[in-house]
């Protein structure tokens, strides 16, 4: 039996966040607030060398003088940075743990999320570095990767074991002074992932990290650093779900990708943090700085599916420094109820014959606001640079908004830039056509949305594409008739 529109709306409004459960793990949490002592304490807790502590302190001092950015097209109550606890690690954390040592309660939690570690390890052929509340508790497939010389570990361990790499690259793409949230992250980050692919190595599996925010009132500040040495290839997945919470939680991550000569990095994200309930209460603030550097002939491809978070503020960027380097950005951003997203990319063309592609699909429903904000910059030495951008927005219902703010700056006469943007809604005739052929309205919408986002979904690795497709359906079901 087909749903009526009203019934569907009702069902969806009452539909609670699927992953909104809370696992009771004893946490080792710092007092709330932020000052130099807290920064030092985090560093000490992590057993960090002195240069790292100094780096954090420097970032903290810069942050203190900065002001929160207000240019984004989002409105929210600003988080109180003194009301957040900056460190929360599950207890019983042993550096020499194996999978068996992992807290059974945690394993239970992953099972609920559908990523039971032990099962996934064999079946999915995915090495997962799981981050629960800032501390990495389980790393799989380390051995297989080790044989190839690939380093894939929590960044806190990398600081101990590979200080030369961390020291050289951390902060080189996103300097501590870059922006308010990057500075904050640099000062207080507690963990994250570190990945190094040696020269000429093709990473045999998709690397993956899984983030969750668990403890109430804790901000999550993770730091990811991926280095692909000359001629190497890696595909990296990042997925997020967070439990249901009433107060807003802050998530301010920094991701740095370095693709050296001839290297290729593919970075995919499925973001499904708690978006707040239907009144717009609660939800995660997602303020992320992601940037990649491409050396000669290198290629970086960002793919993202953004369905969660109350407020998203995220611009994965590519600095195309080397000649012939390629930057790509594929994005689907879905907002429903009171969600707000201001997302897009920056393509900075510095080298000759550099190319970039931007495909951005925004879908807004309910009372949400969805913005694309992007920059394409061709510098005077970037001969024969090429850019193609396409931003499409789909509006569902008349209480949401779709916005585009593309900045295009060309300083070279050989530049070729194309930019296209369209805004439309799902046509009544399209739905009618489907209905006529016996496809219920609900399915028809899913079908059309899928078609609309296909270009981007196709770019995701297989396992992710399925999950993403499902997420799209969950996020949008019943939001139009």
């Amino acid at each position, binding site marked *: 039996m087909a749903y009526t529109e009203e019934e569907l709306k009702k069902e969806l409004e009452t539909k609670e966040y699927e992953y909104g459960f809370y696992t009771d793990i004893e946490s080792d949490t710092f007092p709330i607030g932020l000052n130099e002592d807290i920064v030092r304490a985090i560093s000490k807790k992590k057993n960090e060398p002195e240069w790292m502590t100094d780096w954090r302190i420097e970032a903290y001092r810069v942050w203190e003088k900065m002001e929160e950015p207000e240019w984004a097209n989002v409105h929210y109550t600003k988080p109180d940075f003194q009301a957040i606890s900056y460190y929360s690690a599950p207890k019983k954390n042993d550096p020499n743990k194996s999978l068996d040592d992992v807290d059974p309660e945690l394993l239970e939690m992953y099972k609920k999320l559908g990523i039971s570690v032990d099962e996934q390890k064999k079946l999915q052929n995915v090495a997962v570095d799981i981050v629960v509340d800032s501390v990495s508790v389980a790393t799989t497939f380390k051995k297989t990767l080790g044989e190839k010389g690939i380093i894939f570990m929590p960044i806190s361990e990398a600081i101990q074991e590979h200080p030369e790499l961390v020291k050289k690259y951390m902060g080189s793409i996103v300097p501590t002074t870059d922006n308010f949230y990057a500075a904050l992250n640099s000062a207080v980050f507690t963990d994250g992932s570190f990945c190094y692919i040696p020269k000429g190595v093709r990473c045999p599996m998709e690397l993956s990290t899984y983030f969750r925010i668990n403890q109430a009132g804790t901000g999550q500040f993770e730091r990811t650093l991926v280095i692909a040495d000359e001629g190497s290839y890696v595909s990296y997945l990042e997925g997020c779900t967070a439990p249901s919470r009433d107060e807003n939680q802050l998530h301010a991550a920094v991701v740095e990708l370095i693709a050296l000569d001839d290297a290729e990095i593919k970075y995919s994200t499925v973001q499904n943090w708690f978006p707040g309930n239907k009144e717009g209460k609660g939800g995660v603030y997602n303020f992320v700085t992601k940037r990649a550097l491409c050396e000669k002939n290198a290629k970086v491809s960002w793919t993202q599916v953004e369905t969660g978070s109350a407020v998203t503020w995220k611009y994965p960027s590519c600095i195309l420094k080397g000649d012939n380097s390629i930057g790509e950005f594929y994005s689907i951003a879905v907002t429903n109820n009171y969600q707000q997203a201001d997302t897009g990319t920056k393509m900075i063309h510095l080298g000759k014959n550099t190319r970039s592609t931007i495909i951005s699909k925004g879908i807004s429903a309910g009372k949400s606001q969805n913005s694309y904000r992007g920059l394409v910059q061709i510098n005077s030495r970037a001969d024969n640079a090429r850019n193609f951008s396409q931003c499409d927005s789909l509006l569902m219902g*008349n209480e949401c*908004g779709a916005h585009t703010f593309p900045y295009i700056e060309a300083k070279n006469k050989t530049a070729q830039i194309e930019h296209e943007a369209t805004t439309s809604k799902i046509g009544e005739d399209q739905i009618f056509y489907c209905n006529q052929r016996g496809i219920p309205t609900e399915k028809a919408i899913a079908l059309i949305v899928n078609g609309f986002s296909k270009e981007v979904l196709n770019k995701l690795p297989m396992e992710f594409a399925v999950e993403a497709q499902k997420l799209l359906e969950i996020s949008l079901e019943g939001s139009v008739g």
Partner: protein
Amino acid sequence: MDLKDKLISSFMAFENNVDVDHPVHEVRMEAMKNFEIKGFPSKKEEAWKYTSLNSLQKVDFSIFPKELNALEYKEVKKYFINEIDTYKIVFIDGIFSSNLSETTHDGVDICLMSSALNKPMYKQIIDVYFNKVASKDESLTTLNTAFSKEGAYIYIPKNKMPKKPIEIVHFATGTEASLMLQPRNLIIVEENAEVQIIERHQSLTSNEVLTNCVTEIFAAKSSIVDYYKVQNDAANASLIDNTYVDQKDKSDVKFHTFSFGGKLTRNNLNFYQNGEYLDSTMKGVTILGDKQHVDHHTLVHHIEPNCESHQDYKGIYGDSSTGVFNGKIIVEKLAQKTNAFQQNNNILISDKASINTKPQLEIFADDVKCSHGCTIGQLDEDALFYLQSRGIPKKEARALLMYAFANNVLESVRIPELKTRINKLIANKLGVNLGFDL
């Protein structure tokens, strides 16, 4: 003393010359207060990110010209569309020139802002329209409002159309080493009426000129407004043009902006669609060289349902010139069935030229068709080769292609003599003579 302070202190002197008891003076004082707080916009403001007014603020501009400089028609004939008969409202250094002008009160009012402000018979219209659509917030507009005294006043009553097009021309003669002008125009087109207007700012010397112009246009139900801005000023002249258009049901307003000259030109075109089934069109051709800078800022605010807007801007940038295009389209929740299109194509022909473009869509209604397209590229090498292989010299071949590129915009110019004139200006700017008009 910087320009802002000078303007603030000049305001008192200005007050001695106007009727301070007129209700408009309240508006002026209010506007002055706003400018005192805001001052000149800086590059930190989003709307002025790519255009800096710093160097202009360092110039010691005269705010009031000391003496009237007379001009003979034959000296300036070439700046008019002299092939056809037109009504003319001409200003020399900001002061109305009666011997060059041809105004009328025959069925329509084509006259001066100063008389509209001073004569009691216009009071009612001034009360209803003056400063009603212009921004009370934007600093340069309020600066103009504060000093508003002179300009063109055009009133076309219901069902009327003036017999010929109207030319509004501002000359600067260089009696002052540097001069700042602030003309204020008010144009009211009543129901079913129609008007064609050509506006030009022309400096006749190499002395520095800064014009901060505000034009308010009210297009009532089913009216038609055709407005052409010819910007081919001298190398030391800068223009900040603020135009505000209020449109009612079924009206059709078209703007064509041709920017070839001047040092710094900033066009703020703002359309407010306060009715249904209406159409707004903005088109522009920009061809720049040297160190010229042109900044087109357009805003179309779709407030009511079933309306359309069309924008088409073409730019060709040579030497060290810089171009900016910022097109903003806002579609309100109520404005269902809106069709809004925007197109911006640019060609860079020099290594030092640059273009910054930012098409912007803000959409709150779901049943709309909105699109924007933007390209930056070069002349097609194959097409160039084709023309050369048929014996057309490279320079002419390039010019031909550029003509073709700009032609979309020229096509909709409805005054043939003006079109010919623009063609000549383009040929001049490109430094070629094709021996025919397109």
